[in-house]
């Protein structure tokens, strides 16, 4: 009798192993959390030093057009106007998303709706292959193919927003395509069947039913692609020209937040204004990627298939 009682009151083998498992996954969670918080803390502390330690006006930073932290401007303050970089980053991101979206949707529709068998067999591996190519390779191709091409066709020196757009278009295309394909796959079969049963053609079904139902997912895919484009540094830096000027056309050399960051960080000294100003750029980048994340969340919540 007692033996059974004892056995029942003891923690069982299964419970113990579950506790152990919970503990290990909790540890992993804590570790990730600590790392994320540490990164935020570090970037924020460094990035805000420009404003609190070096007393740069936040508005001057966001709206100034001259970036030359080691030179004092007309008002006696160092010139840390980040507007050219912010504009450059947004312009490149929006343009490349704009160019990539139709191609991505077209490819995804072909893969899922028009030729599921051949499409999946050929296009899926191709897009996955594109994801795996390192960004320096894209940059190198951009430098030796895209830049001369832009120079011959559109004039200018070839370096600029347009070349950056072309390179980023290829880089974000696979991301947007594969995510769009996943959403199309998740559209329930009976939507299509109902539409076809009503006498709609295949094109009408794709256009009016499948794409309509998948819109939130497609928007998420586009924002995801934009987030990637916004954060891409190396490939863009190689083709954009890195001139901290407001772009007055698409073929004039300009710069992005990331290109100025990667280029300048090795030439500045920790704790100096020049270095802090770069951290402020990093902070802007971080806030923007948070913003993209929030947008993805909102779209995802609003547009759930009901």
């Amino acid at each position: 009798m007692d033996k059974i009682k004892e056995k029942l009151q003891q923690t069982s083998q299964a419970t113990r192993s579950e506790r152990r498992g919970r503990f290990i996954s909790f540890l992993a969670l804590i570790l990730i959390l600590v790392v994320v918080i540490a990164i935020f803390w570090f970037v924020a502390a460094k990035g805000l030093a420009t404003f609190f330690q070096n007393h740069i006006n936040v508005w001057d930073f966001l709206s100034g057009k001259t970036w030359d932290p080691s030179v004092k401007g007309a008002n006696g303050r160092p010139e840390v106007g980040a507007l050219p970089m912010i504009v450059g980053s947004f312009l490149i991101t929006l343009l490349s998303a704009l160019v990539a979206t139709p191609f991505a949707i077209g490819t995804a529709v072909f893969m899922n709706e028009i030729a599921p068998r051949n499409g999946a067999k050929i296009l899926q591996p191709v897009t996955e292959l594109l994801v795996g190519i390192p960004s320096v390779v894209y940059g190198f191709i951009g430098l030796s193919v895209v830049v001369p091409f832009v120079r011959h066709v559109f004039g200018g020196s070839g370096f600029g927003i347009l070349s950056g757009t072309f390179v980023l278009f290829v880089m974000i295309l696979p991301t947007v395509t594969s995510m769009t394909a996943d959403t199309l796959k998740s559209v329930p079969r009976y939507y299509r069947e109902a539409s076809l049963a009503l006498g709609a053609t295949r094109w009408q079904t794709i256009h009016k039913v499948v794409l309509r139902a998948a819109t939130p997912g497609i928007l998420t895919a586009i924002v995801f692609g934009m987030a990637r484009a916004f954060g891409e540094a190396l490939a863009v830096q190689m083709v954009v020209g890195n001139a901290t000027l407001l772009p007055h056309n698409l073929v004039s050399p300009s710069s992005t937040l990331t290109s100025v960051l990667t280029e300048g960080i090795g030439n500045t000294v920790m704790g100096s204004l020049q270095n802090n100003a770069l951290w402020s750029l990093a902070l802007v980048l971080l806030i923007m990627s948070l913003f993209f994340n929030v947008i993805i969340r909102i779209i995802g919540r609003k547009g759930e298939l009901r």
Partner: protein
Amino acid sequence: MNKRRIAGVALFLIAVGGLLGLGYQTRNRSSAGGSITTVGSTALQPLVEAAGEQFSGDHLGVFINVQGGGSGTGLSQIQEGAVAIGNSDVFAEEQSGIHSHNLVDHRVAVVGIVPIINKEVGLKTLTTAQLQKVFDGTYTNWRELGGKNVPITIVNRAQGSGTRATFEKWALRGHRVKTAQEQDSSGMVRSIVSTTPGAISYVAFSYANKTVQKVAINGVAPTNQNVTSNKWQVWSYEHMYTNGRPTGVAKSFLNYIESPKIQSTLVRQLGYISISQMHVERDVKGRVTVIR
């Protein structure tokens, strides 16, 4: 627990423990006399790397770890005492954020810097005034200077680059330049100038090869000979800074680089100019004295 799981966990622990142990065994013992780390200037990196290899060959068990990162990184790391030697193209006094009083300067080589233009421009010499007006944007077409009818494309190095600082100080005489495109390595600059019509930039002598046109300034040709006599004024020292007087491996490595053995072989082969060849000396304020 079954045996396979125990074996799996044990294997995992051994692997992790082994890795940590390996990392600990091969850790960087900069003070213990085994190896040292140098960080900084990418312009000086090839020389330090090559000399470091030879040095390790001569001194068994000693390893010179060479990292790039730029002059700013080199100076800030040596100031914090994180590395044994910090490499820089500029004087520590010239870099903002550096308190130079603790740092000891070792000049190991001299580098000449030359303006380069695309070959099709058709110009071989420019005056200082012309260079200033090209870089501040007064001239926009090479035609205005007697060259071909191609627009001028300025390619700068990154802000804070040692090459750019030297060029702006000595070739443009501190004249303020217009914001233009920037690239973060000399190799990149050269390949852009060689392929872009009407492009102008500046690189160290060792980077200026046949794909680009070297430009003489005020009729003085960019040669090592002219640098040693200061007739060609666009040059800079390559500095290796230590925090306080160097000791141990750092000291013997610096002596090694400064020795005639390296100065007369590696330094020349890699396109630098040896300190011992210089007929003049220039201090941080730019005052030039003749060495007798």
